């Protein structure tokens, strides 16, 4: 049962996201029947699932919303401001109900909302279409569930979803209510428009399990033209059907195993090179390529497109704008860019902060915008793009920008900058607005509150191994740029030696590596520093950090690291190349150096500890 419940929750969330997306689009332009259809499909699916699972409040509310949408589709009710607000409210309530239903409580009294939805639906009575109409080009697919199949309605949802990957499911009978009844005989008929052959269709149905018998009928001759064309066309654009749900834990396990294979591959190569046998070498070569491909593929399974999170944001911006009486649109670019699932989850909250900030503190109110010669509606752009070793996410608004003079004055008063500071550049500005408790706005609002946001964003992104950059032009707008590593699980790193030990330094924080002779080592206030090109960087010796014996030999190299707007230098014996490391955690032992953040197995099979430059610099 809990498996069904999890499925219900995750499916419902996807549909709620789709609902919000459609509502926001409709708000921009109410004359889009395909968006109404998208709404209808999602609501209908939630209703069906909730009914099958016995979540009555969810089913009841989605039914009310569905009725309202039916009226709109039939042209009997308008899609006006009041209706949109009601639908937004309904979507919110539905989301709360879904959460409450699965946690065993009912947190929300929806009777008032139901009343309002109901009145609207009654006001526009629509003649109900006959339940079974033969659709041209469709064929009947009927199946019978095994006796005693649990939750036939939920199963049917699974089957129809599977069928929908083959074509368009036009109709399913009987209704969920009938299926939920004791007397249900287990027989379900769906109409499917597809180019696939009968065997493929039957196999798809059987693959869902608990199916005793399948029958695929002939294709109905095209007769009457379809009356609900949108209902068919839209179905093909539903985004979820080509995805398979897999527990994240299983992907992690695959990732682990692939990492092991990479390590084994290295050992195999070393062993084969000792034997020197041509046919063995050929096999080793093949294994080498295949394992590389396998690792890439497994890494790929952890990647998800950013739209899975971004598509919730139009609603965030809309709500933020309405709360403070502004007008705003969100433009999303690069929604197909992929990011490690774990990273994407972590970055969602910071992005919400930045978007609300942009609306609340960035954008002017409509009158001020018009007065400044700008379009009345403010524009916030959320863009994702891929660079070689990073994914960059920017949040841009075309608002008023940051008041440099005002902020400089405040920073002087508070002693954050010296009193004779004349100008703040973008880096200084970010440092100041990222101080806990500082806000760029002159007033506190319900949306972003006072000063909550930027400091939280900056610290979260840094914790993920990323960086935040900021630029602003007064009167023109503000840009936040988040630069994130591609994956949390694979870290490109430089391998540094220290005596006969190897340590890995993640590239994320490395800006360059230089010969020790390229600079001068001095002591400032009893602390060693590395002076190069007028920069004075605190210097750590890897040997001292890890407590290795002996002095640094001549000719050591220096790794320049930078994190959280601080820079430093690490002196190492020698550097021996770069590797993509699969990071492994282990149970830390007491007393372990805080410079160590994890470990990884190197290509030669040995284990190297990872030295965390970010940690070094922060602990400075």
């Amino acid at each position, binding site marked *: 049962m809990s498996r069904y419940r999890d499925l219900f929750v995750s499916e419902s969330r996807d549909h709620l996201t789709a609902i919000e997306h459609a509502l926001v689009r409709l708000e921009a332009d109410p004359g889009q029947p395909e968006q109404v259809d998208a709404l209808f499909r999602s609501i209908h699916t939630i209703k069906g699932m909730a009914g099958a699972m016995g979540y009555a409040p969810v089913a009841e509310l989605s039914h009310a919303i569905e009725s309202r949408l039916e009226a709109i589709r039939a042209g009997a009710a308008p899609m006006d401001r009041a209706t949109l607000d009601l639908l937004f409210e309904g979507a919110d309530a539905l989301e709360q109900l879904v959460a409450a239903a699965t946690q065993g409580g009912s947190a929300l009294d929806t009777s008032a909302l139901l009343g309002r939805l109901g009145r609207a639906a009654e006001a526009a009575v629509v003649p109900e279409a006959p339940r079974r109409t033969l659709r041209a080009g469709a064929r009947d697919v009927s199946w019978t569930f095994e006796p005693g199949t649990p939750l036939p309605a939920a199963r049917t949802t699974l089957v129809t979803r599977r069928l929908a990957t083959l074509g368009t499911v036009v109709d399913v009978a009987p209704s969920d209510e009938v299926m939920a009844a004791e007397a249900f005989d287990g027989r379900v008929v769906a109409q499917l428009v597809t180019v696939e052959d009968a065997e493929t269709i039957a196999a798809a149905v059987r693959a869902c399990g608990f199916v005793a018998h399948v029958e695929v009928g002939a294709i109905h001759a095209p007769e009457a033209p379809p009356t609900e064309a949108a209902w068919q066309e839209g179905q093909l654009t539903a985004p979820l059907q080509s995805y398979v749900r897999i527990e994240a834990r299983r992907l992690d396990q695959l990732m682990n195993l692939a990492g092991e294979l990479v390590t084994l591959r290295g050992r195999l190569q070393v062993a084969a090179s000792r034997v020197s046998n041509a046919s063995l070498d050929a096999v080793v070569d093949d294994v080498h390529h295949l394992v590389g491909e396998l690792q890439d593929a497994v890494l790929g399974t952890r990647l998800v497109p950013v739209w899975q999170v971004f598509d919730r944001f139009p609603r965030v911006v809309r709500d933020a704008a309405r709360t403070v009486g502004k007008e705003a649109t969100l433009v999303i670019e690069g929604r197909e860019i992929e990011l490690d699932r774990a990273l994407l989850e972590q970055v969602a909250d910071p992005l919400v902060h930045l978007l609300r900030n942009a609306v609340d503190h960035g954008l002017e109110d409509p009158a001020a915008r018009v007065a400044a010669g700008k379009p009345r509606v403010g524009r916030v752009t959320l863009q994702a793009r891929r660079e070689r070793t990073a994914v960059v996410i920017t949040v841009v608004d075309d608002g008023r920008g940051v008041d440099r003079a005002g902020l400089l004055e405040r920073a002087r008063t508070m002693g954050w900058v010296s009193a004779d500071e004349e100008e703040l550049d973008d880096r200084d500005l970010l440092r100041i607005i990222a101080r806990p408790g500082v806000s760029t706005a002159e007033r506190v609002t319900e949306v972003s509150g006072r000063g909550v946001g930027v400091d939280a964003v900056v610290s979260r992104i840094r914790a993920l191994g990323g960086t935040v950059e900021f630029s602003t032009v007064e009167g023109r707008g503000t840009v936040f740029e988040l630069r994130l590593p591609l994956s949390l699980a694979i870290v490109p790193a430089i391998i540094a030696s220290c005596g006969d030990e190897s340590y890995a330094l993640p590239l994320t924080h490395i800006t360059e590596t230089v010969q020790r002779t390229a600079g001068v080592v001095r002591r400032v206030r009893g602390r060693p520093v590395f002076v190069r090109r007028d920069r004075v960087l605190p210097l750590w010796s890897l040997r001292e950090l890890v407590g290795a014996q002996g002095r640094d030999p001549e000719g050591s190299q220096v790794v320049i690291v930078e994190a959280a707007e601080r820079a430093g230098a690490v002196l190492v014996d020698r550097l021996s190349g770069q590797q993509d490391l699969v990071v492994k955690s282990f*149970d830390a032992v007491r007393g372990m150096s805080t410079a160590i953040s994890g470990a990884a197995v190197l290509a030669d099979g040995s284990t190297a500890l990872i030295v965390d430059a970010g940690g070094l610099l922060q602990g400075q």
Partner: protein
Amino acid sequence: MTSRQLLVVASGTVAYALDSTCVREITAMLPTTRIPGAGPEVRGLINLRGQLLPVVDLAVRLGGAPTPADGGEVVVLAVNGRSFGLLVDEVREVIAVDAAPADSSSLLTGQGPGGLIREVGHFGDAVVLEVDVRELATQSLA
């Protein structure tokens, strides 16, 4: 009276018993990677089929000379979801002892470094000393 299964291991010249419910597996000692900052009883990290485990030398932990570098066996222990290896000279056998209440027969409770050792009974003519694996984990892991 129910009985408990104990794994008997040799470390230095003494035999110790470990609660077998915490034992995951036994492996020959593997190459180690030194962990900076860890105490002398921590031999380092081993890579057991991809899982990295810190290894504690039982002999050193109990105040003796280190287990010879070229030998020994590792008992992989899991306590409260955390895993580590315990390096001993050799693993001997599994015995069953009567599950007496922990405090009544524990003549040596609190004895040994850090209160790790207690007597659990006799086996043949030898006294069986049990190493408190949970306490060991608490003291060794961060």
